């Protein structure tokens, strides 16, 4: 059973609506990653954090997403204005460090944009 907790498991949004997903990393893991997995099983790295600080993010994330990992609260990833192409499984993963170590994944939040 996954120790990385993601909520909600499913969300359905209309185009232009906000879509927010949350992630509680495994205890003791300071590094959190967000990936987008599309229906063709292509993974897109979105952003990662170490504690509360952003380590890296892609352009799309910077322009269209809002993400944070506040102290003592779940991490969150929010699409500001959903598009059809955002329909995907959003996976959160945590790690003991940021140097390429094993990722521990949650079960994902499946977003459907109608």
């Amino acid at each position, binding site marked *: 059973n*996954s120790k*990385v907790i*993601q909520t909600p498991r499913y969300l359905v949004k209309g185009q232009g609506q906000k879509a927010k997903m949350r992630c509680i990393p495994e205890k003791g893991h300071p590094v959190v*990653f967000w*990936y987008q997995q599309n229906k*063709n*099983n*292509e*993974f897109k*790295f979105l952003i*990662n954090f*170490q504690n509360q600080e952003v*380590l*890296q993010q892609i352009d799309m994330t910077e322009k269209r997403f809002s993400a944070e990992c506040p102290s003592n609260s779940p991490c969150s990833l929010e699409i500001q204005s959903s598009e059809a192409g955002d329909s995907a499984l959003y*996976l959160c*993963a945590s790690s003991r460090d*940021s*140097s*390429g170590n*094993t*990722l*521990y*994944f*949650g*079960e*994902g939040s499946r977003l459907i944009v109608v």
Partner: protein
Amino acid sequence: AQSVTQPDARVTVSEGASLQLRCKYSSSVTPYLFWYVQYPRQGLQLLLKYYSGDPVVQGVNGFEAEFSKSNSSFHLRKASVHWSDSAVYFCAVSMMGSGTYQRFGTGTKLQVVP
């Protein structure tokens, strides 16, 4: 940047038969290599990883993988598959160093038939 190719989108094997799932990587230096498994409606779970040393690494549930620098490969093997091994298998690569993230192949869907 590193990349991973899994040339077989689908593999079907008979229960009890041996298995090899192929993974080729591209990297200027020896990377960290991982195999993950994803069961339906679940996140990814680590099977095994290679950092350095013995090129044959053992993983969970009887899986092993062999790193080949000359072939830029990290193929996954199992001597005798069980129906419960049916899942999607992902190969991933990352670099040592702070702030790196894993890059994933597009997966191989394994179907084990009676």
